[in-house]
Each structure stands twice: as C-alpha cells, then as structure tokens.
C-alpha cells in the first residue's frame, strides 16, 4: 500500500528538523560521497498489489505442481497432504510475525509450542532429548557428524552408508571439509541395501561415528539384524551411531531409532506437515541421549516457573550457543526453522498416533500396488524386497527419456538415479504417498506400457 498518509510529508519534515538535519541526504552524510548512489537502482517495480499477484500467478503457472499431475517423486521431499487447519494456524500473525523467543514473558505461545515439538520428536524417534530444529535433514546430519567429532575428539574417520541420500552426503562433505576427516562412503549392495559387511569392517578405533539412513535413500527398509550388528560394532570401538530418517512418516510404523541403538537421530520433518515448496524451507530434526545434551547444537526450550510457581517455558542451556560462546559454540546456527517446526507440531497433533499410522500404511500400500503393477511390464526390473514407500525400477532406457514422455501425458515420473552416480544409470526411483490414487498409479502403468 503506498497511499500517502495525510500530512505524512509534514510529519517527516518535523522529524528531520527534530533530529537536526535539513534533508534525508544529510542523514547519510558520513557515507563517503563517491559511494553514495546518485540515481535509482536498476530494479523493476513498483507494482500495485493487483499487478504483483498477476505477475506471480503467471510465473507459478509455468510450473507443474503435484496437484496437477500424477506424481511419483520423493527422494527427500514428499508429497503428503498438509491439513487445512495446519496451514491456517501457522498463518496467524501472532505466530509468524514474532521473532526468536528471547523474552519469554512475551513468547509463551512459541515457547510452549516448541516444547511440544521437542516432545513429539522425542516420542517419534524414541530418543531422550530433541532440539527445537535445524535447517533441514542434510544440515542436521552434517551437524550430527560435527557433534560426534566433539564427543570423540582426535578421531578422524567417519563411515557413511552409501544408501544415505547423496545430497546429505554431499553436505556432510562440504561442512566437514575444514576438519580434514576421512569420510568413507560404502557403496550399497545390488539390492539397494546398505552393504553391512563392508560397513562393519570399515569401523576402527579411529572412527568417530557411523551414519545409516532407514528407510534408506532407495526406500529399502534396512535389515534389522544388519542395523543391530552395525550399532554393536560401532559401539565396540566407542564410536557413535547416527541414524537418519528422511521419510519420517515411516516412524508411524517402524521401530524408532532409539530402539535400534542410535546415539543421535537426525531427520527431515517436511513429510510431517510442510509443503514441498520446491525443496525449501524444510525442517531438520535432531535428538540424542541425555548424556550428549551439552554437545547438541541448536536452540532448546526448557520448562521453568515464575515467582508465583506458574509454569512457563524459556530458551535454555544457551551457553552452548554462538551468541554466548562465540567461536567456542557448538554450532553457528541462530535463525532456525521455528515456523516449520510449529507446522509439524500442529500436523502431528491433528494426526495423532492413529492418523500417522494411517498415512504410513496408505503410503506403503500404494507403493506395493505400484510395484506389483510395474513388475508386470516387460523390460522393467524391481530388485528390492522390503521397501517403505519408495522403490527402484531398473529400466531398459534412460529414465530421463521416460520422464519426458510421461510429462507429455501429465505424469511426473521418478528420479533418474544416474544423476548421482554413473553406476546407478538406468535406475529410476519412484515414490507413493497416501495421495497416490489407484487411478494415477494405473495411469502411470498404462503410459509406461505404451512407451516401452
């Protein structure tokens, strides 16, 4: 809105006068003249609100959202339903126009919600303490590796299953580069499982931590015996077991990381109530054992009370954080993902245990149906046995070609795994959720039947 308020100009002039300058230019007099801008920046605008919404609407219409296609992409960002109530509650200005709750007396809404969020993360993951969010699952994993380095100083090897999301592994590589660690990434086996034997033999007394994702990047529900033995093996060398869950709706069904020997859980919260939004903002989850609390990065909300004994919540243990500890902090994180955490808290409250289990079962069931139907198409091979809601299809042609054909038929196909690794060429990662209707699955099967 740019309607000039009545008398605004006069008011501004009075203020300039009050401040003791004669013009706006004089407010900037200590900026050397040669670097003060003389004219306008070369920028478009200003647009009226109706012009703006038209322009953005037209840009948005050049994209193909999941709602306008039969959609089979997952791989770290998932097309689950977000409830209307979730969307409308996080649009309350009291939530989204507040800042970090540094003043607890004026921020009890955010603080209590964050305390609830931490509780939900603990209960989902089976861990003892959770922080109040990281940027995304990938940076949460990198922070977990850095945390393991602080807990096991002097060790220089990190062992990562090659069935961890390739972009997560890439972020770990960039963020730990200054430490000069030896990152051992163990290629998965031919049925898209973690290669447990190679993993175990890589663990040495010099290993700070072991990283596994479950369900893994390819959708495989990792072998429980393999997980158990890996946890035991890394604990034997006194390293830490980091377990990542990216498709976190799986936690509605599967045994939680806390019961699988995890020392640090990291996860992606997006499947639990955030739109895909072209990959961001997402929501990093992190939880650990109480014994490791002081080395955990990120903000923490704790319970307290006022002088009358009334319960209230505060940011706590901030001596771990950058604004107090500066270069000796556990992390540099300041702004986090509070509103995303709130959305997930609300969505989990709406779902309840039954609702979350239902989402998980429906997603899993839709994937099973798709797998069964696709396996009937000559030329397509599906080597996996135990998956959650994603699976790999071996294709006779490049998946990119298939995707282009499918796009013409209003179908967003799977992910070409060849983009990450030449050895994964001609493999195609597909995903289903509770929104994958039998009609859309049939549409995919029929289209592939025509193309192949």
């Amino acid at each position, binding site marked *: 809105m740019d309607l000039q308020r009545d008398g605004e100009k006069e008011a501004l002039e*009075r*203020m*300039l006068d009050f*401040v003791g300058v004669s013009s706006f230019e004089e*407010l*900037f007099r*200590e900026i050397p003249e040669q*670097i003060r801008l003389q004219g306008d*920046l070369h920028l*478009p605008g*200003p647009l009226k609100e109706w012009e*703006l*919404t038209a322009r953005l609407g*037209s840009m*948005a219409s050049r*994209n193909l*959202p999941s709602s306008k296609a039969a959609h089979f992409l997952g791989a*770290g*960002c998932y097309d689950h339903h977000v409830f209307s109530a979730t969307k409308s*509650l996080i649009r*309350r200005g009291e*939530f989204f126009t*507040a*800042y*970090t709750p540094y003043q607890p*007396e*004026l921020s009890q809404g*955010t603080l209590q919600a*964050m305390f609830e969020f*931490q*509780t939900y993360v603990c209960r989902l993951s089976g861990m003892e303490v959770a922080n109040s969010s990281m940027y995304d699952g990938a940076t949460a994993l990198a922070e977990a590796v850095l945390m393991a380095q602080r807990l096991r100083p002097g060790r220089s090897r990190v062992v990562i299953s090659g069935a961890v999301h390739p*972009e997560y592994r890439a*972020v770990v590589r*960039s963020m730990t580069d*200054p430490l000069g660690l030896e990152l051992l990434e163990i290629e998965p086996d031919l049925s898209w499982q973690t290669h447990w034997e190679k993993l175990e033999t890589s663990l040495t007394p010099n290993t700070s931590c072991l990283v596994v994702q479950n369900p893994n990047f390819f959708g495989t529900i990792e072998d429980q015996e393999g997980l158990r033995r890996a946890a035991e093996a890394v604990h034997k060398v006194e390293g830490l077991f980091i377990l990542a869950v990216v498709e976190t709706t799986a936690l509605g*069904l599967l*045994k939680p990381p806390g019961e699988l020997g995890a020392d640090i859980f990291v996860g992606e919260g997006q499947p639990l109530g955030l739109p*895909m939004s*072209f990959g*961001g903002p997402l929501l990093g989850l992190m939880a650990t054992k109480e014994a490791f*609390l002081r080395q955990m990065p990120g903000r923490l*909300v704790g*319970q*307290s009370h*006022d002088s009358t004994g*009334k319960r209230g919540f505060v940011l706590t*243990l901030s001596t771990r954080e*950058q*604004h*107090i*500890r500066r270069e*000796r902090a556990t992390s540099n*994180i*300041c*702004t986090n993902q*509070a*509103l995303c955490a*709130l959305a997930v808290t609300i969505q989990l409250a709406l779902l*309840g245990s039954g609702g979350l289990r239902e989402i998980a*079962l429906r997603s899993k069931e839709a994937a099973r149906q798709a797998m069964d139907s696709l396996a009937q198409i000559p030329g397509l091979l599906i080597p996996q046995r135990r998956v959650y809601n994603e699976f790999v299809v071996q294709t006779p042609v490049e998946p990119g070609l298939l995707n282009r054909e499918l796009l013409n038929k209003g179908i967003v196909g799977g992910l070409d795994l060849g983009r990450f690794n030449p050895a994964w060429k001609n493999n195609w990662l597909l995903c289903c959720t509770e929104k994958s209707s039998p009609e859309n699955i049939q549409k995919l099967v029929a289209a592939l039947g025509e193309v192949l």
Partner: protein
Amino acid sequence: MMGNHEPPGFFEAEGGLLFREPLIFELGGSKQKGDSLEKERISEESIGIPEEYLRQDLPIPQLTEQQVVRHYTRLSQWNFSVDTGFYPLGSCTMKYNPRVNEEAASLEGFASLHPYAPVEAVQGALALMYELEAMLAEITGMDRVTLQPAAGAHAELTGMLMVRAYHRELGKPRKKVLIPDSAHGTNPASCALCGFQVVQVPSDERGLLSPREISSRLDQDVAALMLTNPNTLGLFEEHILEISEMVHRAGGLVYCDGANLNALTGVARVGDMGVDLVHMNLHKTFSTPHGGGGPGAGPLGVKASLEPFLPVPRVAKKGDGFSLQEDFPKSIGRIKAFYGHFGVLVRAYAYLLSQGPGGLREATRKAVLNANYLRVALKDLYHLPYDRLCKHECVFSDRNQARFGVQALDIAKRLMDYGFHPPTIYFPLIVKGALMVEPTESETPETLGKFVEAMRSIAREAQEEPEKVRSAPHLTKVGRLDEVAAARRPVLAAPMAKAASPHGEPS
C-alpha cells in the same frame, strides 16, 4: 496483580482475557485408530513387513480437530508479534510482513512443486530465482548471488568456506580472520567451523574500526576481515574504503555481515565499498516473516573473483530457458539439500517488486530517520555512549538507571507492561548494559511517540519507584521465569502419560 502496577491509560497495554491451556499431551486425547483403514483392509498384517520391524507403541495423543485448533489459537494469543505491536528489537529488523507475500508463496505452482520435477516443469520457479539473484546483486553491487544459504549464519559459513577455498586455490592457505569486538556471535562461530582462528579487533573511541588497529594485525596469514556495516552500534564504518584497500593489499578478502542492510538499501552498496562477500537476511531487510525464529533465508553475494567457489547447484539461463547446473570443479560443493528456502525467496521477490527502487530507498530513509528520532528523543534520560548520527538503529545503555539499581533487563521487562516489545539487551558486548533499539521504517510517528513516552515514564519510575521496574513485568501471562532453575535441571520434553489437572496447569 495489576492495581498500581498498571501504567497510565494512554499507553498501549491493557489487561485482557488470557486462557489457560495445558500441554497438548495433557489434553487427555483418546487412543482410537484411523477406522477408515479397516474398510479398505489395509493393515499391519498385510503389508509384508516382519513383526519385529514394527514399533509397539506410538505415544502421541489422538485429539479432535477443534481441540487442536483451539489449543494453538490460545497459544498464539500468548505471543507478542509485529502484528500485535511495536517490536524494536535491535539487529533483527522487525518490519511489517506484507500479506500479499504470504499469498504468493502459497500459490499451488510454488508450494506443491517438487525440487526434482523435470526442468520443463519448473521454469517459473527457476525464472524467479534467476531474477531474484540479479536483483540482489544490483542492490548490493556484487557480481553473482547464490540463494542457497538457509539463514545469515549459514551464509557466513558458506562465505567463509569460499574464502578458504579461494586462498587454497592460490596455493597459500591462510589461518586468521579479523573480527571487530562489536560483531554478532555468529561471525566468530562461523569462522571457527571453517577452521579459522579469530583475531578480535577493538573498536576505537568513536565505536568504529580504525585503520591503525587493522593494519597492526594484518599479515600474510589473514584470510579475511569480517565486518558489519553499519556496525552493531548502528554506526557507519567511515574508514571502510581505506580499510578494505589495506586488506586487499595484504592479499585478504572483506566479508560483510549484511544483517544491517536496512540502513543502506537504495542509498549505498557494499560492493562499491571494497566488500568481496556479503550476505543478506531476507527475513530482516526484505520483509519475509521471522516465523518465531525462522525460517529465514541468507543469500550470499560475491565478487567475480570468488564466483568459481560458489556452492552448487546454480541457476543458469540459456535462451529463454532456465536450468540448474552442478558442474563447477572449484565449487565448495553443496551446503544444503535442494536449492535454498524457495518459499522465503518468493516472498522477498514479491516485496522487491512491490517496492521498486524508489520504495526501497524510501524505506531505508525512514528507517534511519526513525532511529535518529528515538536517539534524540531519549538521549537526555538514557545514556548514549556514541552520541552522533546513527543509521537504522541506536544503542543506549542503562548507566543512568543503574545508579538506582535498575538494569537493562528491568527496563526491558517493564516495557512489556506498556505494551511494547523490548529492544535487544546486553548486545553489542562492548556497551555495558546495552539497549539496542531498531524501529524500522514500518512504524508511524504516533507509535514512536508512544514508545518515547513509555521509555521516559520508565526512566522516571526507575528513579522514583525502582522496585516497580525491578519486579516487572506485571501484566504478562507469566512473570519473570527462573532461567537458572531451567538450566540446572533441564526439563526439555513432557513426561509420558501425564493427565491434566482441572486447572490446566500441573499441580
């Protein structure tokens, strides 16, 4: 509880009806399962996962939609926000968050778009990113911008990784980063993550970086100077040209923390001041909401010499088409999954278009005028350690009130009773008892006037009734909370199976 603590009626705050509300886990939800599953015969037995893989217990309460909506609506009412009132939190730029930006980000074509969708299906999103990069480059005077960093601190980390890669590429890795003593805590923390040793530079008696202090610390091992301009005292670094030239001559780079760009946008560009890298906090300068602590977005602008080291992927344009490119051998690699906080980028893009170049300059001018208005209106009662023109914020101290035993914290808490969010307190560290006030351009002269009256009234109270200030706040949902107890025996999650007491508070 109110009585004589209630401030005069012409101020902002008044008592109101606030609801008690227990934790969501104390609402006593039922344990019913999704019965729609039964009809379709989807069950744990039929899904082909061995029993021992399944969890036995999922201790999450089952509530009705109305219970949930009421619960979080009540919680929201316990928050102070920009929508509720004046929020002069220094360094955070709590400006108004236009509603049309929210609508833009929630358009189906943006919100329901998958990051791995085929490139033909995401042309609108890539075009927006490409244009936003160019707009931010123009605003800061930089050659190239990456939109990937999730927040300011994440951009600092990204930038310092690039600084490290730059020196390594030249065959001369460097170890030290110079950081002024007035810097944000994220600056040294980000440098430490990149393996740099932090060398603190003292500010001079005028609150500025002096060329002398810099030059005495400059050597062949200094990788960069990391500064904030205007600095955290709200003062423009007057020697910036001389200083950046000195750093460059010694082979170092200049990183600018762009937290304070609301003082410069449309008036001057850090790229013209010798800065090699600068990040922008879209949630500060470009009006995207703070969200109760995030998500933000921290695009990073760099000069051409640093371009090869930018993180991947990068948006590229060929003809009329856009794509994402990953093949840059000198890149520091990937710093987060996918491409940054796209939903936040849409909001900032909408803001820039709605303002235009003139609107951006007007915003900066008003923000600076407002800060100076508060400075002049309060400096007779509140100690002003650096008394001259400020930019978008000014820093007072509690020195005058401390004589009566009233500290910055007390002043902050008492402001709540008047209906204002307090300023940032005890930062920057170089001002003892700091009160850092940033009004932004959004506020009207009337609101600023009320804030001045409140601050003056508190100064009077500090002298005449200090206990009233020391025991504040009196009108908030809870009184001062025991932070020491919270840290000593941390309770960070609700205990299992706790039933609500009749009053909604634990007994």
